[in-house]
């Protein structure tokens, strides 16, 4: 198969990094490469020094750790070490992404230092890499399993772990945090007590588990346990072909399923270098904006249920049902759509697509108006949401938070604006931000985002061509039309090859990112030239949100914690994968 062609000259961004690095003592230990992103390779011994430099150097300022993925190179040629820890960084000031690979030499006991002291967001990501790959991060504050259960044996994402090997788990195997077993000496006049909320609790929306120590009604210590919906997405993607992964992506963030699929196929398409017709890309844009509206409806609605407003939840469900009708007309499914394909869409949209969308543009705004009238000046909603769950701008960045959560702290980072994909740079729309960083700000940002989405949809509909293909005509990637398959040999062969072997994606790696409904949704794919991914890591936007939860709620009351959990927009399918 085709090997990765290393470009002789570095891109401007990579060259700049190399020049900056050459002024530091790190120069000899860091290798600068230029893949889809500027990539640095470093050994574990220099990793912490490099991380600190990347964060603090005024000309770099990689202040937001987006993602940290383990990689097992057991069946991948051309890599020096078996294990790698791949971090993706974002510089908000420079609007640049960067990849740093830490090559871990010891295959038996892969050890590297923890970066949790530099980017607090690394805490959970490193636990995940420990859980799934057995990477041991020295100096990590709490290196325990996070996704798999406590009785699990082995590290499932290693290549020599059989995908179906399960382990029995019982209540007795559950490991509680050490501090739950001791009484708190420093407590005031109240006796402290430890409570456990979840995993099956109505306020957790999906399955998360909060263990909190209360002093009176104040939370003095908290720990969140996740992984109750760990469905092994990443392992499953390694055993399926590129197109077969699409249904799995729908079940990551199932509230806005289509955005996941689009982010995923964009990753594969950019690896293939395949071009999608304008009409196909516009349909994707329109439907992903509708998905964003659905997502915000459920998120706000469910949050309001938690603070006692059941009516608004039923009310918010109406636009959602109407959008379901549109999506069902397009692809036959309501929730988990599997509508995108690598190279375009599964089928064309119905003839009345334009009319249906425009009808929705008419019916949704009155709902939003009504909701704002019900909530914005509602005394209960204001009291419960305003001033609770507060997060400062610096905290949000350190915790790796993106999306509406970050924008409600006053940081206008929106992928659709910072790196416009599809046609987002052609449309006239605004990035709503708020400055208080509390639950009410998040509510306001989401409400305004829905209106902006409608604005985008209207402009996209105006330029949507009536006729034309929605998929590429590269038959190495897209299935040829059924009629041609029946009548000409060549198409039949393409069809056969695609179905039996899958798309052949050139060897290499890629990180593609879009604006998901709750933050930057990225897919990091590694191909070795086979019909399926060698490794697929999703950067779940709600993962850092959930990691921050136990820090946000400290000092607040339990009822504030419940109101906060709703605004984090945590979707278990994406959180646990």
């Amino acid at each position, binding site marked *: 198969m085709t090997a990765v062609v290393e470009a002789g000259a570095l891109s401007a961004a990579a060259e700049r990094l190399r020049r900056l690095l050459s002024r530091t003592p790190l120069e000899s230990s860091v290798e600068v490469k230029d893949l889809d992103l500027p990539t640095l390779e470093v050994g574990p011994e220099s990793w912490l020094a490099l991380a600190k430099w990347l964060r603090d150097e005024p000309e770099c300022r990689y202040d937001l750790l987006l993602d940290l993925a383990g990689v097992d190179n057991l069946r991948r040629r051309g890599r020096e070490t078996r294990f790698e820890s791949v971090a993706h960084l974002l510089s908000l000031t420079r609007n640049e992404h960067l990849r740093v690979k830490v090559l871990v030499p010891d295959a038996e006991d892969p050890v590297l230092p923890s970066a949790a002291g530099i980017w607090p967001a690394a805490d959970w990501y490193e636990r995940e890499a420990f859980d799934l790959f057995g990477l041991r991060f020295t100096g990590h504050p709490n290196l325990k399993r996070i996704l798999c*259960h406590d009785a699990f044996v082995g590290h499932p994402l290693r290549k020599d772990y059989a995908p179906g090997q399960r*382990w*029995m788990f019982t209540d007795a195997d559950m490991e509680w945090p050490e501090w739950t077993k001791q009484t708190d000496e420093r407590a005031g006049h109240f006796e402290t007590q430890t409570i456990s909320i979840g995993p099956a609790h109505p306020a957790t929306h999906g*399955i998360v588990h909060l263990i909190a120590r209360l002093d009176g009604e104040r939370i003095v210590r908290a720990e969140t346990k996740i992984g109750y919906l760990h*469905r092994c997405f990443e392992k499953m993607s390694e055993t399926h072909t590129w197109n077969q992964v699409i249904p*799995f992506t729908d079940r990551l963030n199932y509230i806005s399923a289509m955005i996941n699929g689009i982010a995923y196929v964009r990753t594969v398409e950019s690896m293939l270098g395949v071009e999608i017709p304008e009409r196909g890309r516009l349909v994707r844009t329109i439907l992903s904006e509708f998905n964003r509206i659905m997502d915000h409806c459920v998120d706000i609605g469910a949050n309001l249920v938690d603070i006692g407003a059941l009516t608004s939840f*039923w009310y918010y469900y*109406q636009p959602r049902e109407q959008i379901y009708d549109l999506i069902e007309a397009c692809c036959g499914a309501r*929730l988990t759509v599997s509508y995108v394909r690598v190279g375009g869409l599964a089928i064309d949209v119905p003839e009345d697509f334009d009319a249906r969308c425009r009808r929705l543009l008419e019916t949704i705004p009155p709902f939003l108006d009504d909701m704002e009238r019900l909530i914005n000046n509602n005394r209960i909603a204001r009291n419960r949401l305003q001033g609770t769950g507060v997060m400062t701008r610096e905290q949000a960045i350190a915790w790796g938070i993106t999306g509406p959560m970050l924008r409600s702290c006053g940081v206008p980072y929106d992928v659709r604006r910072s790196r416009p994909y599809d046609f987002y740079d052609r449309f006239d729309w605004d990035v709503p931000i708020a400055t208080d960083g509390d639950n009410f700000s998040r509510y306001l940002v989401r409400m305004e985002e829905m209106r902006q989405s409608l604005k985008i949809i209207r402009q996209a509909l105006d330029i949507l061509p009536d006729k034309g293909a929605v998929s590429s005509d590269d038959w190495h990637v897209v299935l040829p039309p059924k009629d041609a398959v029946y009548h000409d040999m060549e198409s039949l062969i393409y069809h056969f090859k695609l179905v039996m072997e899958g798309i052949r994606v050139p060897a290499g790696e890629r990180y593609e990112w879009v604006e998901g409904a709750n933050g930057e949704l990225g897919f990091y794919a590694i191909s070795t030239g086979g019909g399926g991914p060698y490794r697929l890591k999703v950067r779940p936007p709600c993962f850092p949100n959930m990691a921050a939860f136990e820090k946000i709620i400290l000092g607040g009351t339990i009822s504030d914690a419940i109101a906060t959990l709703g605004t984090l927009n945590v979707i278990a399918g994406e959180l646990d994968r």
Partner: protein
Amino acid sequence: MSGPVSSLPSHASAKSGVADFLTTRVEVALAWARKNSLWPFPFATACCGIEFMSVVSSHYDLSRFGAEFVRFTPRQSDLLIVAGTVTDKLAPTLRRIYDEMPEPKWVISMGVCASSGGFYRAYHVTQGIDEIVPVDVYVPGCPPTPEELLHGFLELQKKIQSGEKSRDSRSAKWAASQPV
């Protein structure tokens, strides 16, 4: 009053056409009352939970069948709707919730993940909740449409009326292997 009249033997007065008395067995009357006043506990873990929300919300309206009173405590509910994937990590919780529900109780397994693990044939996913709890009605689909869940619900009502019990040898074995 189509429900009771069709399921219970009754005598109608020839003149008015109105049932002025009826005879039945206690079990039949009890089953009729039970099937029309189910209190579901939504054990919603994943995507199916979102479709379950559609079913209880105003568009599809589960309350038409007497089950609008969704309870979030197992001690007040008699119908466990498992909506979504159950992982090995969650399995003990599911069993505990089932055990806390008072008799008589029924279980609907909503969606293929709950029924068989679905397409997650993987290291952390329970391959069907009938490993853990006895299931009365399996609803296929990924996720099932609201109509499918309503159909499953009607099937359960029939089952309750007929007094049929589900076989639970597999899950009983699982429960016996758990520490007390």
